[in-house]
Structures are given as C-alpha cells and as structure tokens.
C-alpha cells in the first residue's frame, strides 16, 4: 500500500512536471505559428535610432521574408546606408553586403553578436529562425493575461537566456535578453496588430540597457502571400 502511494506520488510529480514543460513548448509553438503564419511577407519599415540624449536618426529598409527561415533586409535610406543588405538563410547561414566595398561577406558564427549597421540588433537577433528552433522553453509563470517563459539557447549564443512574456493571445509582448554574465542586456518590446488573417509586429523596439540606445522598427506597409520567389533570398539579389 505504501509502495502504491509512493508510485502514485511519483507519477503525479512526473506528470505535473511534464505538463508544465509541455505547456511551455506548446505556448512557444503557438507563438511561432501566429508570428510566422504567412507564407511570405514584404514590408517597408522605418527604423528610428535614439541615443541616451534623445537624439534620433531615421533609416528606412525593405524586409522580405519567406518560409519562416529566410529573410532579406535592404536599407533604402539615408543615402549613406542605401544598399546595405543582410541575408539570413536556413542552417545559420547569414551574409552582409556593403555597397561601398562591392563585396559580400558571409557572417561567421563567432561574430553573430555584432550589431548590424549601427542598430541595437545583432546578426543573431535578425536571424530568421523560430523561437522553437532557437530556444528551449520553461514556463516561469502564468496568469489570466500573460505567460512568462524562460528561454535558453539550443546553440552557442551571445545570450545566456531570455525571458519571454506572451499575452493571452499567444503574441510576444516583451523579451528580456541576458548576456553571458547573466546580466540583463537588452529588452525587445512588441506591438502586434492584425491585418487580414495575420498578426504582425507593427512596432518593435530594441533597447540596449548598457548604452541606453534604442532602435524602434515601425512597419509602414506590408504585403502577405504575394508568392515571393526564392531568387530574392540570394546573395545575388542582395547585391543588385
């Protein structure tokens, strides 16, 4: 009888632990499903870079995205940045193109932590990769309005962990990134809106907590499911 009780307690413990783990993973799956639901998207964005004194710089870019794991960003203004490109492809393959040099460079994994074109986003941040593929998730808390997940990178990363806050609609609200010294280094905040059948981040703000510098990305226009060609997601197109 005693052994049966112990077994029941063990099963209940394992079950409860497993349920909690599954829930975190399920939440992350739902987040991925909602945030990358379109087959493809083309967006015109405005980036506003703000320093600690409130001085602003504005840049514009076009983002093409397809199949959850392909992304191309090309700056369209200001003139000094026009043509700078970033390409993210499956299997951690990333390239950057600087028109002033006329040369593309593949981004080695050891420099994924470098910031892209003066923004507060690193190549790793810009990589087209789902949360599920990037992180293991653990549910830290949940209430009526939100879930809080602790994400730990599956592969070598500039971050030791991230704390993701998800609203009841399974849309990300905020991500706090911790550096390898386990110190909070960067905060991303999102404002999702719905267009037709799809949710997308109308604004996303990245704030570097050390430098107090921030980058706000606003979507000015967006088109979904236009049948973007795979040729767009190539070094060749990035250079054109």
């Amino acid at each position: 009888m005693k052994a049966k009780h112990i077994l029941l307690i063990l099963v209940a413990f394992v079950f409860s632990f497993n349920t909690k783990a599954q829930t975190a993973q399920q939440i992350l799956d739902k987040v991925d499903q909602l945030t990358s639901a379109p087959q493809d998207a083309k967006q015109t964005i405005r980036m506003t870079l703000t320093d600690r004194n409130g001085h602003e710089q504005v840049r514009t870019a076009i983002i093409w995205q397809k199949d959850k794991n392909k992304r191309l960003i090309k700056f369209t203004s200001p003139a000094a940045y026009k043509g700078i490109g970033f390409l993210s492809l499956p299997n951690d393959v990333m390239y950057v193109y600087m028109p002033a040099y006329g040369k593309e460079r593949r981004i080695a994994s050891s420099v994924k932590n470098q910031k892209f074109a003066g923004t507060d986003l690193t190549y790793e941040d810009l990589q087209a990769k789902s949360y599920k593929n990037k992180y293991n998730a653990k549910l830290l808390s949940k209430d009526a309005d939100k879930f809080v997940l602790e994400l730990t990178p599956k592969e070598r990363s500039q971050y030791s962990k991230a704390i993701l806050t998800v609203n009841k609609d399974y849309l990300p609200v905020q991500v706090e990134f911790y550096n390898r010294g386990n110190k909070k280094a960067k905060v991303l905040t999102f404002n999702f809106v719905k267009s037709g059948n799809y949710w997308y981040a109308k604004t996303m703000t990245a704030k570097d907590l050390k430098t107090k510098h921030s980058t706000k990305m606003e979507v000015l226009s967006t088109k979904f499911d236009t049948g973007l060609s795979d040729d767009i997601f190539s070094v060749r197109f990035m250079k054109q």
Partner: protein
Amino acid sequence: MKRLTILFFAIFGMIALYAQDSTGLSIGGQLLSNERVLLKKGNPWAWNENRLDLKLQENFSGNAKFYAQVWIRNIGLPQVGQINDLFNKGIVDPINLEIRQAYVQINDFLVKNLDFTAGRQIITWGTADKINPTDNLNPLDLEDVLDFGRRRGADALRFDYYLNNDWYIEAVAEPFFRPANMPVGIYANLFDPAQFITMPQGLTMSSFSSTITLPDNKLSSQFIGGIKLKGFVAGFDFSLSYVYGRDYLPLFKNIDMQVLDAQGNTAVNVDFYYPRHHILGFDFAGNIAGIGVWGEAAAFFPKGAIKFTSILHTYDMTQFPPQPVTYTVDSTLQKKGLPYVKYVLGADYTFPDGIYANFQFVHGFLHERFNGGLNDYYLLRIEKSLFYDKLKIAPISGSFIVTDYKELKDNYTLLYMPQVIYKPNLNTEITLSLGLFGGKGKDIFTSLKDLDLLALSVKYDF
C-alpha cells in the same frame, strides 16, 4: 570593327529584349570637398578638389539594370599664365567630367543564374583592405597618392554564374587596354622616371625625354581577361583567380644616353612599354575567435623575360680627335617564367569598449615590381567611435615602410596620418587629417617628407 559593331547591336538588342517596364531613374551620389594645405612657411595649397559624384540607376522589370557613376570635378587651382588665358573659362575655372562607370546588367542572361554586365565597370576582386594584389582588371588611378588603391572603371564584358549562394564563377573580358594615370599636383613628381635613373660617373642628365609604346591596336594585343572562382569553405570566404593581363604601369625598355659635350652633359631618352603577364591569385577572409582576418596573394608570371637595355653614346677621349663610341648593357629584371609574388595579410578587431584596430602587412605596393623590388609596408589604424558614431578619432593611423632591413636606419619611411571624423548627421562627414611624413632612402613615399600637410574633407551623401 564590323564584328565590334555587330557585338554592340547584339548586346543592346538583348537589353531591349530583357528590359521591359522601368522603375524610373534613381539619382544619388556624393558631394565631396577635399582641401589640403602644406605645413610650411606660407602654407601653400597642396590640393583642392570639389567633386560631384553622381550615381544613376534604373531597374527594369525584366531583370535588367542600368548604372552609371559620373564625376564632375573642379580640381587644382587656376593655371593662368598669360592674359589670353583669362578669356578661357576652362583655364580660369577648370572643370572635368569623368565617366567612372556606365554599364548595363542583365540577370538570368540566356540561362538561369547567369548575370551579364557590359560597359565600364569597377570589378572588385580581392579581400584585403584597399590594397588588392589580385585586382588586375581595373586600371590604376594614381591621381591622388593619398587615396591609394583607387582604380578606374574597365570597359568590360563580365559574366557571373552563381552555382549557389556560396559559390560563383566570374569571367571578365576587356577588349581595350587602358594604362594607369599618374599623380597630379604636388604629387606629380613622385613617379618621375628621371629620379630612378643612375647616371654613369662624370655624366649629368641635362635633358630627359621619353617614348611610350602602347600595345598594338589589335584585339589580341589589347585584350585582358580573367576568371575567378569564389567560394566558402570551413568558415572562410575565399577565391582563386587567373588573369591574362598587362602591367598598367609603364616599364623601362631602353635607356639611351647621349653625351653632348666634354663637361659630361647628357641627353637621356627612355622607351617605356607595358609588358604582358599571367597572374594567379588567391584570397581569403574570415574570422578567428572574433578577430577578422584576411589574406591575398598574387603571383605574377611575366610573359617573356623582363629586361631593359642601357645604351651610352659617348666619346673616346684618349684619341684625338675624340672618337664616338657606344656601350650597350642588358639588365634582366625578371627571368622568363620566374614569378614574383605580392601579398597582403591583415586583421581587424573591435574591442568591447568600441575601439577598432586594423592592421595590414603588405609585401609589394601597387607600383612595385619584381623580386628584390618589393618593399614591406606595415599599416596600422586604431580608432574609437564616440557619441554613437557621431565622432570618430583615429590617433594612430599610418604606415611604416621598410626598403632594406639590413640598413634600416637609412631605408625607411614613416607616414603618420591621425584623423578626426565628425558626422553632424547621417549623410554628412567632416574629416580633419594631419599628414606627417618622414624617412630616409629611395622609396617614393620618402619624397613626401617635405609635404607635411593638414587636410579637411567634407562629404555629403544624397
């Protein structure tokens, strides 16, 4: 000629076929003002350049693109020598126009993943920073010595075939040879060939003349071509290349010295030519433990031995009257089939506090040739960005050049060029530079030692 005309119409017929709806002509570019004053008594002007760099681009929906880069410039100061010059606006206020690039590019030309580019274009080969030994398809533009590494566009047909994102093959054909242009203004004398001629004892150069022989005016002589394979292996970008090229700088072929009188005054005439060579190139770029590293090497195989002949016409003074006599000496600079290798090794690193360091070692500068004639250059730049890149200071920036390690104290050049760069907004860049030059020996950069300067440049991108 007929064949070239057919080729011309074939290319532009193809463009018309590919080019359908235009997205409109976009115009961008840069306005640059570049001023330098010498740090000597009276502060004479060393450089005055005002440049409008126009970039025009038009994309067509049928995978075609037109691109042009045009410089409209006012360079130098008025060279007015007589009253009539004042009636000539071209002398009073000289303006020149230069088509740096003008080409049409067609994507998926004939087959998928093949890009075809026709026209004047700058072909960027090599991974090193500004000094690229493997870049032998664009004529050198040595106009401004302090802007070393600058190239002019080449009139070329270029084919890029993309095997995938990491691998592509590039083939270039240039039907016309165009020589390098030399420095101007205060730097005009740096490459003066007369300074490289050692006169026999007792003779003085009283006049100097030269003759340059360009390659024959036929396709087989003028043609330059190259092929490159670019790839990515084990975390490194790399490329292998071959160029069937010509030296863009003229080389001595014959030196003819004519003794004019008993005092030893001698007229010197030099024949120059542009020798052929085969060039094998290799470059790589990557990252080791967060440090960017790159290397680039080119082996030059002269087609035939490179030699020059010295001819001295003098008099045998032991006879009366003195009898004319001619001495001829052949000097071999590079034996047939024996290559000389130029290379660059470099690294850069950004420290966590934002300090950026860039180091390059160069063996063989742009103008140097042949084994024994290649010097070593140690280039270092350390800069720090402040106020979110609004201000950049480079207190250490320059080069140490060694022409002879055995007698270093008499054979070196030091170029020190610290800079302060201020960006009042994203499109404007104001740079204040100091140029301090010193050294001993015969290197051409040593002759900059009397040309210490202060430079101001203002750039505006639009």
